[in-house]
């Protein structure tokens, strides 16, 4: 049997500076330096990234899809948070 599976890291790539970081996938690695190197070799062989984040997968907390309706409900009835809620007779806004 194989033992000691290396921990799992989630990989986030930023295409160029100024762009948001996007989840690319995950890699196994024994430590953060090797996680970065593996992430580069797996997810950026063609300059897909100019910067990389790796985060131990176990540190990521996700909201639960089954509770999504209730969890995100508070913003459903607040249409006044959007500009088209307001009447601005005659004036032009860009």
């Amino acid at each position: 049997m194989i033992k000691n599976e290396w921990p799992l890291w989630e990989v986030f790539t930023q295409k160029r500076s100024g762009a948001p970081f996007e989840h690319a996938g995950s890699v196994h690695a024994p430590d953060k330096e090797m996680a970065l190197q593996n992430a580069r070799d797996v997810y950026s062989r063609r300059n897909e990234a100019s910067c990389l984040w790796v985060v131990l997968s176990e540190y990521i907390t996700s909201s639960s899809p089954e509770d999504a309706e209730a969890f995100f409900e508070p913003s459903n009835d607040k249409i006044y948070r959007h500009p088209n809620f307001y009447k601005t007779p005659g004036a032009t806004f860009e």
Partner: protein
Amino acid sequence: MESHSEQEKEKQFNERIDRGDIIEPKDWMPERYRKQLIRIMGQHAHSEIVGMLPEGNWITRAPSLRRKAVLLAKVQDEAGHGLYIYSGTETLGVSRDQMNQELLSGKAKYSSIFNYPTLSWADMGAIGWLVDGAAIVNQTALAKCSYGPYARAMIRICKEENFHHKQGYEILATLMTGTPEQKAMAQDAVDRFWWPSLMMFGPSDKDSPNTAELMRWKVKKYTNDDLRQRFIDRTVPQAENIGLKLPDDKLKWNPDTMHYEHGEINWDEFYNVIKGNGICNHQRLKARNDAHDKGAWVREAANAYAGKHAEKTMAA
């Protein structure tokens, strides 16, 4: 929270599929959907990994530095493909260790095409053009599959496959402008790889027990025969373009269906290779096991280094 019966949940799941929703790892899914995806994605990942071996065989013998750099890059991409799909499969609750173990023990299946030997340099051309060409057709369809991590891995992979496909064609096109011996070498490679490439799409629809269920769940969007036909239709003109003859007397254009007709596929050969009786099944498995065993000290050293480093950080 109201509690849903399994039946109710499955009904809602099917409605999501019908609406074209993409299923994500934490979403509820039927056990059978999960199992099928673990099976398909696992086999796909193993195929990428074992698929490095027939081509790795020629890296040291590539005819020029350019060809060597290209082949290295291609094989490295295949390793990447394997890793994208493994990590996608892990989101379904199976561990990397387990998948590794299943490959090394010979329990896991992978694409039968990789159990054929690579006898000449022209085989690198035939593999890139035909095997990666077939993979592109398959994977382009899978890029629209209902499971998010698999679909995303496929999108990434498809971008890379076009290079694989074209470099293979370029190898054959170059040989076809060469000496009679070089032309014969290219033709021989295509003669050997054409039929196994058609088998890559899997058994004919009538003999494919999983197709209906996988299509219902939009894991598969097209049947094996549909995809095979698509591959044939786009490949025949490419062969003619450089003077290669595909080894099928029955191959001919049908202006009514707007498709090429083709001869009968030898499914006995296909099942025989899957059962482990292909020319290279044993060799491939041994190569994987050797690589794993010989890499043990590297994994141990990396673990030891990481352990020491963590201790230091704790002490500081």
